[in-house]
């Protein structure tokens, strides 16, 4: 279970998270994405063709940030490893899509598949 301090637990209701990964040759990559606070964990649904997935399969270390849009000095950063599991039946993707009122299946091309990425933090830091 991801233990975000109570002072910043409201950030689990944020609309987007920012995820940083490490690519080939040690190059960082960062992007904003949808996420779901799911059964006490922070999870994302990613298409397996995405660079983020390729990066995490090679190097699971990642950093995820949830920002308070009303106060840019207030955020929580979770650093750790990503655990990746297949989501061939879109079971998790559907739950994530429900948060955003979207059908994630429509975002994928025929033949593509999805994975569930769960953040396993080794360090959680809060600011503000």
């Amino acid at each position: 279970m991801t233990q975000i301090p109570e002072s910043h637990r409201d950030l689990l209701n944020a609309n987007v998270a920012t995820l940083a990964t490490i690519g080939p040759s040690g190059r960082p990559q960062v992007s904003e994405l949808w996420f779901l606070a799911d059964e006490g964990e922070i999870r994302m649904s990613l298409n397996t063709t995405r660079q983020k997935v390729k990066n995490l399969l090679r190097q699971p270390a990642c950093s995820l940030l949830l920002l308070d849009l009303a106060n840019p000095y207030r955020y929580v950063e979770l650093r750790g490893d990503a655990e990746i599991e297949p989501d061939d039946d879109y079971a998790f993707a559907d739950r994530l899509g429900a948060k955003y009122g979207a059908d994630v299946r429509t975002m994928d091309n025929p033949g593509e598949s999805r994975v569930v990425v769960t953040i396993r933090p080794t360090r959680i830091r809060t600011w503000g």
Partner: protein
Amino acid sequence: MDLDEIGRYLDRSPATTGFVAVSIGDGSPLVLPVWYRFDGKTVNIWTTSTRRWPQAVVRTGKAAFAAGDAGKPFAAVTLRGRAEIDEGDEETILSEVRAITSRYIEEDQVDDYVSRWWPSLKAIVRIHPDVSHGWERGY
């Protein structure tokens, strides 16, 4: 988005917080929110060389950057490339500091804000994108 559209998105008003990512000593990533300005060529961030993430820039010469909408249509930009820290001409740096700050606070408050942090923060990290992607409609 093409490069022009990416540039316009990064330059949009009202300005929103961006995110910079670097690789730290153990090879893992570090991400944090930043104020920034895209000057047409580089993403510029006001900072100091004593902080951990700029030190990573000095060590690796690389950084990544992202900015996006927190709501529909979830437009976003992500880019990465060579990064450098500029601690050179103070006048040039201060000019960029004011330009960055002006994107986020009222003009009549810029001097006061800058004076609170200058010269403790007197460096600009510039990210030269060599890979960039943008989406007008995310997901």
